[in-house]
């Protein structure tokens, strides 16, 4: 997937450190969304046919096409909504409960 890299955020100390506009340059990401998740989508690669339906309907754009013609989930930004698993025509995606003991 072609995505911006996470950047470190240092809290501005004076007004001069703040950006001119209300935000940073495009694609300036400093935090992930993985902590939102209760269930994580796990792709069964032998069942996945590479139809990319999940890629198309992912509201967060966290599903990437792999070179093998399958899909891979970016767990940094996946919120675990489950749309991919619900929409998969081949039931190749399972929603597995996150282990919070880690």
């Amino acid at each position, binding site marked *: *997937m*072609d*995505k*911006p890299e996470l950047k470190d*955020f240092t809290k501005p100390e004076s007004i001069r450190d703040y*950006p001119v*506009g*209300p*935000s*940073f*340059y*495009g*694609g*300036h*990401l*400093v*935090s*992930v*969304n993985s902590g*939102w*998740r209760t269930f994580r989508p796990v792709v069964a690669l032998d069942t996945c046919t590479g139809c*990319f*339906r999940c*890629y*198309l*309907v*992912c*509201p*967060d*754009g*966290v599903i*990437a*096409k792999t070179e093998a013609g399958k899909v891979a989930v970016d767990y940094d*930004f996946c*919120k*675990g*909504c*489950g*749309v991919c*698993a*619900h*929409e998969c025509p081949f039931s190749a995606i399972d*929603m597995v409960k996150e282990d919070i003991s880690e």
Partner: protein
Amino acid sequence: MSSNRITVKNMTDKEYFLGHKACAGCGGSLAVRLALKVFGDRTFAALPAGCMSAVGFIYPQMAFLNNAIISTFPGTGSMLSGMRAGLDALGVKDAHVVGFAGDGGTADIGLQALSGAIDRREKIIYICYDNEAYMNTGVQKSGLTPYGARTTTSPAGNNLPGSVMQKKNLFEIVAAHDIAYAATASVGYPQDYLNKLSKAAAVEGTSYIHIYATCPTGWGTPTETSVSLAKEAVDSGLWYLAEYEDGAFTLNRKPKEFFPVKEHLLKQGRFKHLKDSDIKVIEEARDKKWKRMLEKWN
């Protein structure tokens, strides 16, 4: 449809709306994501107050990869005009100017500026992601909230079934300006939406796309059903896929048989309270609308 249409197989792998803080399963963010994937790098976006500006621009985070700015709530249309004028002044010809506004920011608060922009025949693309209430501020009724929907300002009880107004017919209001291109879409039919985005990008003049976007938080629906519910809304006749071009309306999808309205509505928390008599009102309004559309539209 020509062979160069954008599909899931050939669309760019670049994600232009990543890392945003929208609720899980947000239909509006899917609408923005797919639109930016079709329009590409050379896109300048304006977003008024609403969910997508609230979740995209959280300092110090910037979820948009392309150039995007927050406009005033009522001024999306005029801001888009200004952005196009700026691009013209700089001699930039290969860029898209696009606005993403919610249903409140389009049908109620931003309607005047939108009307003005269409009237000026600006070369802009206006996308209304319609989640049928002011979701960002906590689910207040908007002009596009359908009959029977419970919101915080149209509570359901013994005397009222939730919203007592029917959904404002915004698509035809926009078309009445004799706009260059207008369409309705649904996140439940993504390929249809992609086709319409490509058309809107190619049109000389103003284009408007009204996309039905589910909201699990405001509608009280499971997050995973966001796409299937939006498809069901079209299949049940409560939403429709249509286009307006060259002065003529075209219905893109004519269901032979409607999906049962009651079954569709009762899946949503905002409609859980509906009595059979309320559902009858909704069905009658739907049938009246479809009778007119099937008679007059292609």
